[in-house]
């Protein structure tokens, strides 16, 4: 009798413990995101519980997610890329001159920007790999070079505006989509780029080699990873994603000399919220995308609460520390 009740109870306990075990495996970024987003929904049901509102929220969140994905590749490698904010600035103010207010220049402009992105990434990778300069310093120097070059090129102030077809990627929506009501271009770009990055990072040798280098450079080198090649490709990847993100940021924000300032730090914060370890060896594209969404949700939440800008900074700082401390402590307990 007693034995049968025990056996009959056991499966249900197992199911609960299985669910609990599965829940414990969920990276902390998802519960954090959900909590913040649901809270936003209570504050402003129209803005965050309708498809229309969610799409409005996704429009600025997507460029940040693209920047964060690129940054994650470098962080997973064990490096830093501080130059992406300057690359964003470069994209916006160099385009303001190069487009020359003519929509026909859109495609060549984007191609040139991508080419410059590849160049910046190659130089970053070269300096880190061959001159052995730590990437923090390399990309810090590159940040000054890229920002200086952009301002030098336009002579200190933006020339002209960004044409509408260039701004499309960051600003426009595809209207009248069933169920979603409307979808911002930037979100579609994000989905394409994130899928691409996901395949590279989680399904190819290159991705595994990045993680291997981030985990233990020496071991990776001894087991035949071409360290210099992988590192250079990764920096190029990051710079190219920064250019793509920069094009969307420019589309959303318009011409502004300080538009990219601090974006490298935001991208790094988004990565860390998404569970990336600074120092390398860990990373996940999907988690980082949600890290960026969380960061954007925090910003929106603070705006929603009607706090003046300075307080927003302060509270954002506190929340970032809190979120990272929560995920750091919760991953520590699991060990």
């Amino acid at each position, binding site marked *: 009798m007693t034995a049968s009740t025990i056996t009959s109870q056991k499966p249900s306990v197992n199911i609960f413990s299985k669910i609990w075990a599965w829940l414990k495996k969920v990276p902390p970024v998802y519960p954090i995101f959900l909590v913040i987003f649901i809270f936003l929904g209570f504050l402003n049901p129209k803005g965050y519980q309708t498809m229309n509102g969610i799409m409005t929220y996704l429009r600025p969140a997507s460029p940040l997610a693209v920047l964060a994905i690129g940054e994650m590749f470098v962080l997973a*490698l*064990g*490096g830093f890329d*501080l130059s992406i904010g300057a690359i964003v600035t470069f994209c916006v103010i160099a385009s303001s001159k190069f487009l020359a207010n003519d929509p026909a220049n859109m495609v060549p402009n984007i191609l040139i920007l991508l080419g410059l992105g590849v160049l910046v990434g190659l130089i970053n990778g070269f*300096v*880190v*790999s*061959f*001159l*052995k*300069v*730590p*990437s*923090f*310093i*390399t990309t*810090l*120097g*590159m*940040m*000054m*070079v890229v*920002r*200086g*070059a952009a*301002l*030098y090129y336009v002579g*200190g102030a933006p020339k002209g505006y960004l044409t509408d077809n260039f701004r499309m990627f960051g600003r426009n929506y595809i209207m009248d989509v069933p169920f979603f009501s409307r979808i911002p271009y930037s979100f579609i770009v994000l989905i394409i780029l994130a899928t691409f990055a996901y395949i590279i990072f989680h399904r190819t040798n290159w991705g595994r080699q990045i993680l291997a280098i981030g985990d233990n*450079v*020496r071991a990776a*080198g001894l087991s035949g990873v071409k*360290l210099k090649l992988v590192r250079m490709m990764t920096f190029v990847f990051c710079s190219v994603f920064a250019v793509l993100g920069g094009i969307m940021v420019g589309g959303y924000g318009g011409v502004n000399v300080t538009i990219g300032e601090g974006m490298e*730090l935001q991208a*790094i*914060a988004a990565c*860390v919220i998404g569970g990336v*370890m*600074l*120092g*390398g060896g860990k990373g996940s594209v999907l988690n980082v995308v949600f890290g960026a969404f969380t960061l954007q949700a925090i910003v929106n939440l603070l705006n929603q609460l009607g706090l*003046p*800008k*300075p*307080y*927003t*900074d*302060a*509270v*954002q*700082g*506190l929340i*970032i*520390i809190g979120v*990272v*401390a929560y995920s*750091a*402590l919760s991953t*520590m307990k699991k060990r």
Partner: protein
Amino acid sequence: MATTSPSDNWFKRMSRSSKIPPVYIFLIIIFLFTGILDQINSDGQMFTNPAIMLNIIVRSVALGIVAVGQTFVLLGASIDLSVAYTISITAVMSSYIMQGNNSNVPVALLGVFAIGIVIGLVNGLIITKLRVNPFIATLGVSLVIKGVINATFSNYTGSVPQAFEWFGYGTLGPIPVSIIILLLVVTIGWFILARTKFGAHLYGVGGNSEVARLSGVRTDRVLIGAHVLCSVTAVLSGIFLVSLMRSGAPWVGPNGVYDLNSIATAVIGGTALSGGKGGVWGTLAGVLIFGVLATAFNQLGVNPYMKNILQGVIIILAVASYTVRSKKEAA
């Protein structure tokens, strides 16, 4: 003795035995190179005018003081991105409390040092107890300070009394007080690192935290101490800057990019970002390289945006000049 191979010339042996960081050679090269350019293209005062030579150092004082603190933190394998806004809050608070009145000076100094110590403690505690990565922890703290300052002050606030400007403008004989302060800070920094238990522990924690802990070092306390020292140097920098500007403004710190520049100068000086290696004398050289560049750009009338580009390139080259021979992979 075993390390001297036949290929080593006397110069290499000398520089190795004297323990002068190799970055000083780079400093001399930069100085000579820009000086010669100055001779050719401008009035050539960099070599002939002692006032300009002194000016190179005076320009470096604010950055130099905080870079010493940053060196401490980097040696412990940590990082401090909050120094820029710590400088700002010091500058603003001290001039706000002083209001141009001599009798308020002690209160103001006590107040800003207390703020600095609290910021350092908070940084250290978040990093050691909450296990937040130092980059994110100090970035967050810097956002908090930024918010607090910008919410309270929006422009120049208060002023410092005339006597207080002595720090920025006074001279002892022919030597500006500011230079003496800088040298004093560097010497104290050197003394702490090379001659005290705390210094030895800090190198240990930065080199390998786990080994240090197992050998009985209270690693958390050491790291918190380093962060408090770093914030205190940021406060000193802020005090120096406010005495120079006569009134504090909230943008002093971020405008000078003291966070990233102090890290850059420390690394140029040979301090490893991964911790455990380096020292304050190298940092001083890194700071002086920045000073030489600023002065030379001024002398040569370089386009302000070109300045940015050149500075970035030179930072990379300066670090590359000693890392290029290392066999270890950089990250």
